[in-house]
């Protein structure tokens, strides 16, 4: 069996987004690389451009086999797979492209429903596609009366709307690899085997609808993840682009001054409604994330994308998976350090947390002040989580103000992380 003699993770200082290049060296044969996500919604001040990052990735990879992983389609994970940065990656020797099953492009672009009426997975995919369109609609609506909204509300709608817009070019570019594409669900552990000798890759998520149904409690109707059909059904997609057929107020009738008081509040309420929808869409999209575990001997590296509690619930429902995760040696912090993406039970289970020797290594790719609010205790990265990461792990973070293209974290060979 091929022996992995070195492993390095390059965490690029991309800003609010993810770009991780896992490079594996072998005793015999070329190195192999896994590029796990490449995207951002906000660049760091004086930080590298995505072109510069792509150029470095191309330099590191050379002609070696490369696996591309897009854990989910949020802009801050896929924007680099488009535009000039994609052009800079043109020379990569891509052998496999891994995406979640929700991205499978079986459906015609204009499909309103599943190919098979009973196919809930197809319905899910249709709904996800509608969601991207809805996100764009909502963002445009909010922009039209932005001046009437509290700034934090307007900013969050802008951020979520932007992040959830479908990145059609990136989706096309990734799909262009045709048969080299794999659309994975929980349990598709064999997918990476032909491309990464000496490495076992476990796929812990996302579950399909059927898989989820197996463990879902009867009473669990909370997860908006599973109400995508309702959202797409009620989506504000224009049907003919018409305005509602109601007569407007006669301009000759003066508008009472007191209306203005209420109009501002209706706008704010409408914006809060939009934000609620966007948050649900965002969470649903995050929950489509691939959750990958790379195992090499006693080393175990966890890359969960932006998976949130619902996606994690499926993975953590299996006692064997929970036991396996306890042995994690490297953890890519989920969702840029938001609280919901690192379940407390998962964090507490890591055996190497706080260890004197062989301490857990963590990597946090994030940027402060972009998402959430300190006042509402939703800031990303969440301070309490960061405190725990600092005290109980060897933490590498991209928002520490240091210059440079990336952090190189040695996982096998050389000095430990």
């Amino acid at each position, binding site marked *: 069996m091929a022996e992995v003699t070195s492993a390095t993770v390059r965490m690029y200082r991309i800003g609010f987004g993810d770009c991780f290049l896992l490079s594996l060296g072998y005793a015999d044969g070329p190195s192999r690389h896994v590029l796990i996500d490449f995207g951002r919604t906000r660049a760091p001040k004086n930080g590298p451009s995505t072109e510069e990052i792509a150029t470095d990735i191309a330099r590191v990879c050379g002609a070696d086999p490369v696996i591309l992983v897009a854990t989910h389609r949020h802009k801050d994970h896929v924007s680099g797979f488009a535009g000039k940065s994609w052009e800079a990656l043109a020379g990569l020797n891509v052998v496999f492209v891994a995406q979640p099953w929700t991205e499978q492009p079986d459906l015609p672009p204009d499909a309103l429903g599943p190919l098979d009426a009973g196919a809930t997975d197809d319905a899910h995919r249709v709904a996800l596609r509608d969601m991207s369109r809805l996100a764009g609609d909502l963002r445009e609506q909010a922009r039209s009366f932005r001046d009437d909204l509290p700034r934090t509300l307007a900013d969050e709608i802008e951020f979520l709307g932007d992040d959830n817009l479908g990145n059609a070019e990136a989706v096309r570019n990734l799909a262009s690899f045709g048969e080299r594409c794999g659309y994975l669900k929980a349990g598709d552990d064999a997918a990476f085997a032909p491309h990464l000798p000496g490495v076992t890759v476990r796929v812990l998520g996302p579950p399909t609808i059927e898989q989820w149904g197996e463990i879902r409690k009867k009473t669990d109707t909370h997860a908006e993840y599973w109400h995508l059909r309702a959202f797409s059904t009620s989506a504000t997609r224009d049907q003919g682009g018409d305005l*509602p057929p*109601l007569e*407007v107020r006669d301009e000759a009738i003066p508008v009472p001054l007191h209306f203005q008081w209420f109009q501002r*509040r209706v706008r704010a309420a409408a914006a809060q409604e939009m934000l609620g929808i966007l948050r649900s869409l965002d969470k649903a999209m995050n929950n489509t994330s691939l959750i990958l575990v790379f195992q090499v001997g006693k080393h175990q590296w966890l890359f969960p994308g932006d998976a949130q509690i619902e996606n994690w619930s499926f993975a953590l429902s299996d006692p064997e998976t929970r036991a396996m995760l306890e042995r994690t040696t490297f953890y890519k912090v989920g969702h840029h350090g938001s609280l919901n993406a690192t379940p407390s039970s998962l964090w507490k289970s890591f055996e190497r947390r706080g260890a004197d020797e062989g301490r857990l290594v963590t990597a946090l790719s994030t940027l402060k002040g972009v998402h959430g609010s300190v006042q509402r205790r939703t800031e990303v990265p969440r301070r309490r989580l960061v405190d725990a990461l600092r005290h109980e792990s060897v933490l590498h973070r991209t928002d520490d103000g240091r210059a440079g293209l990336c952090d190189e974290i040695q996982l096998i060979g050389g000095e430990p992380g």
Partner: protein
Amino acid sequence: MQRSHEFRVVAQDPTVVDGNQQILTAVVKVPWEPLDEGPRGHRVAVIDFDATTGRLYDPWMPDPARRSPRAPSNQQIETDAAFHAQHTYAVVMRTLARFEKALGRRVEWAFDGQQLKVAPHAFRHANAFYSRDHQALLFGYFPSRERPGSWVWSCLSHDVVAHETTHAIVDGLRRRFLDRSHPDQAAFHEGYADVVALLSVFSLPLVVEQLLWKEKEWKGEEPMVDPQTQLIARSHLSVERLRHASLFGLAEQLGSEMSGGREEVLRRSASLDPQAGLEWPDEPHERGEIFAAALLNSFVAAWSGRLRRLGDRVGALHMSQVAEEASAAAETLLDIIIRALDYTPPVDLRFEDFLAALLTSDSRVRPDDSRWSYRAVIRDCFRRYRIHPPEGTTDDGTWYPATRLRLVYDHTHLESIQRSPEEVFRFLWANRQELGITDQAYAHVLSVRPSLRVGEDGFLLRETVAEYKQDVDLTAGDLHRFDVRQPDGMPDDQPLRLSGGGTLVFDEYGRLELHVYQRVFGRRQTERLQSMWSLGLIPRDLPEVSGLLSPFGVWHQRRAARDVSPKGW
């Protein structure tokens, strides 16, 4: 002198039509008042602003010459903004008037103001909600998927408007019911609003007639209504068949595009068999459906009981008569469940508390229930759903009277205790030990309101209903000192805010009749904490104490420093 306005409203929603394919409408009366354009009155102001398009729509005008015709066409109903506005106003006002009639007083809103604003076309989304912060009911609209080219206006769904209005009213009566607490409390708000909305629909005989007429067949039996005579044979008036016709029938009619989940409430109420091993879900909507099922089945049982007593020798009843009895049963049950609110505790409401409140209030207003046995019917239905009166109630399921307590009324003034929170607090303070109120927590009187009812002798009796709340902050590790068990897995340093409180009912002489008290400590608090902890509803931190210096502190500092400039140091 005019006593009422008449408005034409959509009876259910625009998908429900009569035999001539006309959208089913009804004329309703609301208390008269001078109205401005909108309509805008002293309690409700309709301002038809659409945030999505930025437009103001054509308002309803008080000038009769400018109003829509009395019997609008389907087209007008669907597209006339002024019709939508007056329909929405009428349903809101009708619901409000219903509550005020049952309670015998004006109902305050939960916000600082007297006019509830209503936007019938607030935004282009499939949602409708009440917002305390915005002092408003906001109704969305969206293109219909089931009827391409048409639109779904949530403001035209009679039950949606009544549901949201009920949230606003209950919030005004019991502001603390929106606090995080035991799952029953969140479920109650939704379940109760669903029941009020649905009973409001059933209280229109026209609607019930439609449901009966459309009940063509059930379990292989003949259609319910004879098409020639419009009579219904007694054999078709079993509880089961009435339940199917009314609850399931209405569920079928509620449009799936905008039923707000009430379609599911009705289906579950029609089909849920409590004897088959009922699971109590934690999710508020599902939990609320069980509560709603108990009440809606009480309605059907009461309706059936009324029909049974209508001339046993008569082999059949006219459809209109059956519908009238449904309307009467719905109206009475509405009165009963509305009055019950005054007798609920102000915090940590459980379904069993509402049952006790209902039985207590109804036994005081209608001591003689022998004619229709509403209380027995309700109690039986709740029992089947495993909801029983709580500890601290009599064999009748009513709260124990407070008259057995030895209370001190020295220095308490009758006139003052009927309106003043400070006077009520003085009474509480003087009697805290006898009332069993802990002095480990601060108490705060939330409201003092009159409640009028007609006594058995026909005289008007005035009660005073006051709510108070108690809060105490501590950490989880201290719970054991106060007879509260720490939830499994909760760290000792978890900060907690425990709440309790009570409802006091004083008679016309200012004597305490009832004290409905939720203890700050004890078994129920243990249950509340455990359920909130397991559902992840306990925040890691308590709400922060304001770090801002009060304006008075700022001014005094400046004076001390002899700084008289309007800006800082």
